């Protein structure tokens, strides 16, 4: 009989990646924790600790299992393989390294180890799997970035050699930073803390709203031997943070009253072996629940959560143009409807994580983030330190989608490290992440749209209420953006849109891919179908007829003379649209239990901040020994800015991209490239990179006194300039200077104008546009919906990297599928990844991406932003397809089978 007891046995021995290891670990400890913290296998990622996400997949005796649901004691005497070992020794893993790079199957990279390890297990059994086999084998690993299709392609293409050719603007090259992601070497927020870091855990409210008081904290500290307990009284600066000037309203630790379930009231700090086993329900805090409001309708009946926000109205947005009420009265057809969506969780597979340490009289915070400079400024205020005393070093970020803009973990570890002068780390549990971080705003929208007999829109009236939760976060942005975008990319001469952000006792709603625009499209696009059907006009044709053309005013009166590409998007879909309509007619003629349908929707999104300065700065230099260094501060959270910005810079400078070395985002080393948000990095930081490359090129050309046509090369510490067959060589060491023999720093801030009292003005320098088509099959008796295909046309102005464009489109579409069909966060009820569902590899159908390049007056080489646009039309296209197939409209999302069936049933009853 084998008896294992950590007290009297030397340790647990097993084969890890071919070598024998012996770990001193409690045998019931999760294998994931033991591998990461005791064996140094940080390539094993933890996303949920519950077998729900598969990120921690390892092979135990050859079988793929979740390390988080395996006891380390259970692998004693066995073999464990992880990605970092497999890529060294396993031929299938080596093949996958190349094919994952080739297909850009890794975006942020956090799920990649789980995906690749699962794929190795499959390929060992079946070298040429079909798509269904790949889906079955990888169905246990969640990905939030890629939409899975590139992963399927990569697994089916394992063994292919070669990578796409690298190059500047327009090259569909592999990611510059891809290799680390596909070999398990990438370091994320939880991967970088030193071994001696103390651990921190946050004490959170179990109530939606409550007053609270602490018991004897010092006695609790002594009882457990903690190094520190932090509460609001310990915050040295202003106990408040936020992201919009004038709307900073969230305390780091609540004082006296909590306003949402999951809000922080205290933190405990100590040795991980002490901290982690503590039952936090023992923490000495007494709660007195207060009247709560979880939906805007109830918000008026409780006290104002924030002084000066009467009736819990955080703020309102407004755009008015023409005479919409009169226009609707005179319209030939008027349609109207009410639509609602719930909280949507970002669902990145990497929970928030950070570690901080005091370095001299400064504080360094290493964290996953989308906004290092904003994080720095927010921390400075909380800690009462000058911004120069804080350094933010972003780690690789395992997905963000808007929620990693806000401060989450950083203040806690920063304050603890500052007080203790010891490194301190924290990683949120999945439950903590779901309960406490920002969400997409739930929406309640009513909209009325009218058209004339020729099928031209004459007017629209839009009212939207958004549940902004307990704190403002990016709520004001949503309230302002929605009225500007709620017309969709269509001529709407008479228009009024009113929005309100309403406080409730829910987690703060913040930024999430689209900032409210996906919600408004879910009202406008279904109503466009109703208008087209009422008028007897083809649904694509109806949209094309009304689509904005160059020279048309938007609802804010902004006129784009070039680059309004929405008509081209619809045109490009037309062949697929006709084909789909024919297919569906034929299919439905011979099927009664299942019906097929096709839906279409348009979308647009203004890139960058709304009517606000939001500059980016890029610096680059050439060292005396000839290295070209790009200080690239636009945080790459998987979308690909490391690659895109380098491609733009390489083209502007006129040298091979392979010669460029990147210094990644770090507030000490890279100038402020703004936040990775609002589809602004390719457009704004890209422009800064273009300007920086051009300036650097100009300086170099002047050194050699050659013309703009000259070619630049840098070889062996010298600049080689060739023109008309003549070569000039400038030795870099002759140029003097400091770190760089020659350098340049350039900024770009997009031209925008403030909006007047009617919301008229030029809020963005550029809009990107899109149109997507969804083909579905509805099981009428069950209400289940099978997606058959998504076709997505996107005007990106200019595709800097077409492969990255496809990646963004696929990922956005997958999130749109989740929004449409399964996702809904309910505070206190869906705080894990088996109750909060995001699409799996079996839920995303083939996606055809059509890239439109209409150019842009401002963007670098004509490029526009893309990230947000991709998911805006997906959900309405799916809902329109469901209605086309079944006749049933689902207007309260998500369209889960029971809701689809209920809509079908009410049709049957009519």
């Amino acid at each position, binding site marked *: 009989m084998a008896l294992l007891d950590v007290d009297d046995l030397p340790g647990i021995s097993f084969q890890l990646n071919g070598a024998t290891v012996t770990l001193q670990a409690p045998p019931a400890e999760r294998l994931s924790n033991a591998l990461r913290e005791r064996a140094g296998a940080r390539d094993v990622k933890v996303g949920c600790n519950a077998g729900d996400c598969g990120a921690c997949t390892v092979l135990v005796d050859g079988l793929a299992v979740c390390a988080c649901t395996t*006891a380390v004691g259970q692998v004693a005497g066995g073999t464990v393989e992880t990605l970092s070992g497999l890529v060294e020794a396993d031929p299938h893993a080596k093949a996958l390294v190349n094919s994952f790079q080739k297909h850009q199957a890794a975006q942020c990279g956090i799920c990649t180890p789980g995906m690749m390890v699962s794929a190795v297990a499959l390929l060992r059994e079946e070298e040429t799997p079909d798509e269904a086999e790949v889906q079955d084998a990888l*169905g246990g690993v969640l990905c939030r970035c890629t939409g899975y299709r590139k992963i399927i392609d990569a697994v089916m293409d394992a063994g292919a050699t070669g990578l796409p050719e690298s190059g500047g603007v327009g090259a569909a090259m592999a990611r510059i930073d891809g290799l680390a992601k596909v070999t398990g070497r990438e370091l994320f927020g939880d991967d970088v803390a030193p071994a001696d870091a103390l651990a921190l855990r946050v004490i959170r409210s179990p109530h939606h709203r409550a007053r609270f008081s602490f018991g004897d904290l010092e006695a609790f500290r002594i009882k457990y031997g903690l190094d520190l307990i932090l509460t609001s009284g310990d915050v040295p600066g202003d106990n408040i943070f936020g992201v919009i000037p004038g709307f900073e309203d969230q305390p780091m630790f609540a004082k006296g009253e909590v306003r949402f379930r999951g809000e922080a009231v205290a933190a405990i700090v100590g040795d991980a072996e002490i901290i982690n086993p503590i039952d936090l329900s023992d923490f000495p805090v007494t709660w007195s629940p207060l009247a709560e409001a979880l939906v805007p309708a109830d918000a008026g009946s409780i006290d104002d959560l924030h002084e000066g926000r009467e009736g819990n109205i955080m703020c309102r947005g407004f755009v008015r143009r023409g005479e919409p009420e009169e226009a609707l009265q005179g319209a030939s057809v008027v349609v109207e409807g009410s639509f609602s969506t719930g909280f949507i969780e970002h669902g990145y597979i990497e929970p928030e994580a950070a570690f901080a340490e005091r370095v001299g009289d400064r504080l360094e915070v290493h964290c996953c983030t989308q906004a290092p400079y904003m994080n720095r400024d927010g921390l400075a205020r909380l800690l009462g330190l000058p911004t120069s005393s804080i350094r933010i070093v972003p780690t690789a970020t395992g997905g963000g989608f808007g929620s990693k803009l806000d401060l989450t973990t950083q203040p806690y570890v920063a304050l603890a490290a500052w007080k203790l002068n010891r490194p301190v780390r924290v990683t949120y549990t999945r439950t903590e992440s779901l309960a406490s971080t920002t969400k997409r705003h739930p929406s309640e929208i009513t909209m009325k749209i009218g058209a004339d007999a020729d099928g031209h829109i004459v007017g629209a009236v839009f009212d939207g209420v958004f549940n902004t939760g307990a704190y403002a976060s990016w709520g004001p942005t949503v309230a302002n953006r929605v009225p500007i975008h709620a017309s969709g990319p269509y001529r709407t001469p008479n228009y009024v849109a009113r929005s309100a952000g309403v406080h409730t006792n829910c987690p703060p709603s913040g930024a999430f891919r689209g900032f409210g625009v996906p919600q408004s499209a879910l009202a406008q696009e279904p109503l466009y179908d109703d208008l087209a059907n009422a008028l007897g006009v083809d649904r694509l044709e109806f949209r094309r007829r009304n689509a904005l053309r160059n020279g048309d005013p938007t609802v804010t009166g902004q006129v784009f003379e070039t680059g309004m590409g929405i008509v081209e998007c619809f045109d490009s879909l037309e062949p697929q649209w006709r084909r789909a309509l024919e297919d569906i007619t034929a299919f439905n003629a011979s099927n009664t239990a299942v019906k097929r349908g096709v839906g279409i929707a348009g979308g647009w999104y203004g890139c960058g901040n709304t009517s606000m300065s939001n500059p980016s700065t890029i610096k680059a230099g050439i060292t005396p020994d000839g290295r070209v260094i790009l200080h690239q501060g636009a945080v790459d959270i998987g979308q690909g800015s490391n690659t895109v910005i380098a491609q733009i810079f390489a083209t502007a400078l006129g040298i091979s991209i392979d010669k460029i070395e990147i210094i990644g985002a770090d507030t000490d080393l890279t100038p402020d490239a703004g936040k990775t948000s609002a589809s602004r990095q390719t457009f704004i930081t890209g422009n800064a990179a273009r300007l920086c490359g051009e300036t650097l090129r100009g300086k170099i050309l002047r050194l050699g006194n050659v013309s703009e046509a000259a070619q630049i090369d840098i070889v062996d510490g010298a600049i080689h300039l060739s023109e008309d067959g003549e070569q000039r060589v400038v030795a870099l060491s002759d140029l003097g200077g400091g770190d760089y023999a020659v350098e340049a720093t350039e900024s770009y801030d997009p031209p925008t104008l403030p909006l007047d009292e009617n919301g008229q003005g030029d809020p963005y320098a550029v809009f990107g546009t899109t149109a997507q088509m969804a083909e579905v099959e509805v099981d009428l008796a069950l209400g289940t919906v099978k997606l058959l295909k998504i076709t997505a046309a996107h005007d990106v102005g200019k595709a800097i990297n077409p492969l990255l464009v496809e990646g963004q489109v696929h990922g956005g579409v997958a999130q749109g599928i989740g929004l449409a069909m399964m996702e809904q966060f309910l505070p206190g009820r869906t705080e894990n990844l088996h109750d909060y569902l995001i699409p799996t590899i079996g839920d995303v159908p083939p996606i055809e991406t059509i890239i439109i390049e209409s150019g842009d007056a401002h963007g670098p080489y004509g490029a526009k932003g893309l990230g947000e646009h991709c998911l805006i039309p997906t959900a309405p296209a799916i809902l329109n397809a469901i209605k086309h197939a079944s006749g049933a409209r689902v207007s309260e999302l998500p369209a889960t089978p029971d809701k689809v*069936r209920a809509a079908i049933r009410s049709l049957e009853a009519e």
Partner: protein
Amino acid sequence: MQFHRPETLDDALSLLSGEGARLLAGGTDFYPSLMDEPAPGPILDLRQVAALRGIRLVGDVWRIGATTTWREIARADLPPLFDGLKLAAREVGSIQIQNAGTIAGNLCNASPAADGVPPLLTLDASVEIAGPDGVRQLPLCDFITGVRQTARRADEIVTAVLVPDRSPATSSFLKLGARRYLVISITMVAAMIALDEADAISDARLAVGACSAVAQRLPDVEALLIGAAPRDGEIRARIGGADLVGLAPLSDVRGSADYRLEAARELLVRAILLAVQGQEG
């Protein structure tokens, strides 16, 4: 903290009766139930007990060892009688869960949405339980007594699931969820059907999961099927108005109670036809 890995059932039982312990097998329910907290000891890992593994036919009873994994069931060489159980095995969570999760673990976890329960109910499965006083058997329907509750006593270990061989009957399983993988059922149904020489239904066993605290057999509906021709129209006619006695679904995030009942009825029709197709195929 004690963590035992006995290799024999006797050792396991004596450890359990001595100091008591939490039983661990695949870990796929054990760890999620901890909600990020460390595992409390002592723990008894059953995966080294050879007697608890494997599938074999003993006389006219199939014996499926308690720690047989879903992967092993899905890949086992079994008669078509087990097609429903195999379908269920492939619907359990994900490959990762199927590779680790065990059949007895699924039963002992006693989730209302346990994938293994409806097909085993239609197979008239029994649970074999060993304890200090010897071995006893309980019909599965008596073993699971409520949500997260079973008839296993703290000093007992489930050793096997026993299924009488009713070949050439065939079976099926259908699971309805809001996504393809890693999904907890909205509802699920299992059917076992035997046909007589005239290809009419001579024996029918139906079970529905996730529509009551414990998955339920539907004896009244089963009786209605006897003599029916296994064709869509006729099955639909017999099931359509039947009272689904014993089902009392909840309304929750996965679906409303009304929808669950309606969907279960539709799935029953399809599962019956699917089971018969298996017989024809």
